[in-house]
């Protein structure tokens, strides 16, 4: 299977690799793709949020996974910077699929990146005493996806 140009570009020059201070109140951290749930990829995504404007000022990742998973992580860090956390939650895995030209067998990489965004935002909110945020129209879809990725393993 050949990789798309965009996947190759992110793989060869990943953007925003690294870490932010996970103890800072302004930083939301996500670690998704637990091996026990059958994921072959593991992503750590961190966002730094301006508490007044709710704008994401920095994003960093580290990913264990195939080229597509690395590319998806790199891509979302670029997309996240400058967005508010509400806008961030609207990033859909299919946006990632489209941008990177991911083939169907790599859909799971985009799903994981979307999960990472949601988990990072909610980790930030949790740290700041806010309840978890789930966009209503997306709630159902999100849960379905979770189930799928589990049943794929068993």
């Amino acid at each position, binding site marked *: 299977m050949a990789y798309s140009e965009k996947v190759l570009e992110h793989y060869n020059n990943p953007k925003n690799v690294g870490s932010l201070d996970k103890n800072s109140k302004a930083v939301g951290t996500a670690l998704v793709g637990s091996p026990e749930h059958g994921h*072959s990829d*593991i*992503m750590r995504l961190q966002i730094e949020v301006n508490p007044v404007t709710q704008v994401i000022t920095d994003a960093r*990742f580290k990913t264990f996974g195939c080229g597509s998973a*690395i590319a998806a992580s790199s891509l979302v860090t670029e997309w996240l910077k400058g967005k508010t956390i509400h806008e961030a939650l609207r990033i859909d895995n299919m946006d990632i699929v489209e941008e990177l030209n991911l083939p169907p067998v790599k859909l799971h990489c985009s799903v994981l990146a979307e999960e990472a965004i949601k988990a990072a935002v909610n980790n930030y909110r949790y740290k700041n005493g806010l309840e978890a945020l789930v966009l209503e129209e997306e709630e159902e879809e999100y849960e379905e996806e979770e189930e799928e990725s589990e049943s794929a393993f068993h």
Partner: protein
Amino acid sequence: MLKLPIYLDNNATTPCDPRVVEAMLPYFTETFGNAASRNHPFGWAAEEAVDFAREQVARLIGADPKEIIFTSGATESDNLALKGVFEMYAAKGNHIITTATEHKAVLDTCRHLEKQGARVTYLGVNSEGLIDLKELEAAITPATIMVAVIYANNEIGVINPMRDISAITRRHGVLLMTDATQAVGKIPVDVNKDGIDLMAFSAHKMYGPKGVGALYVRRKSPRVKVTAQLDGGGHERGMRSGTLNVPGIVGFGKACEICQQEMEEDGKHLQILRDKLEKALLQLEESYLNGAPNQRLPHVSNISFKYVEGEGLLMGFNKSIAISSGSACTSASLEPSYVLKALGLGDDLAHSSLRFGLGRFTTEEQIDYTIQAVTDAVNRLRAISPLWEMFKDGIDLDTIQWAH
């Protein structure tokens, strides 16, 4: 000058040796007859060529030419052996014993036979990929008709002790079938010394053409019979109908002859290169060799580079080096190699494995390039791996609370 890409996937297939191609060529255009045409010189010449190749093939494995059935490859040979014996020996029993690390051509055929009423025992392997011979012996029952054990494994190169295994099958009067696709032509295989009753192998793994292989079927002590799985003109003594692939068979014969002459040289040369590669890569922190170190094919190395994912790793150099990974990031199930899992590797190590398969045409220059390229890619990917960072920070990955 080093020519790229470098081919290190010789367990998947090998290039045809130019001497093989040369031997085959006349059989496409000049000597193109049907080996079953008994009434004219075209048929006679083709038959003669097939007979000659049958001798070359038989000689390599210490068999009688009459014991060689030509097929389309090891997959067909595995199917014919397992299904053919299951049908032929139905009156004796329905139990087959095999192992968890067989090739899919054996495993899936066994699954098929289970639906037809077979009872199949799948023996597990230890962390080095070897079965327990006591467990094998204990699994034999009066209903057991056949034991099927892979000669040398295609992913990790581990060689099973066929002589010890056949001592057991002989003692209990059950047939021993082996898939020797990765072993024949690479290491000495002798059906009599090894006590093998049926053996599948394939030309394209030993510098011959694709689409041709053989099943060895013992004719004396015991005389083994298989029920044909392809009905038709009754070729190959009724066991495999279909016009013979004369050019392919000629090439297969030539490939066997070359292997017989050069196996020892090739083996030594390849082991030196393999050991060089392996030694260098195992110097990387947290890299692990898979499979029994001293009971392996000389040209195969399977290594896990912990904390990096195999497919991601391959992407770092797959334009310049062709190898394969035990990762299954692309498969629908996301399940990594079942062979490595059978050795007890966790998902993390199974996903992190690469298989290096050297071959007759591998050079030291290629190995040096590979060492460098793989080392660079491992280091680069570890620098962006969260698992590597946690490992370096002394965090036990098993205690992580995963968000999901």
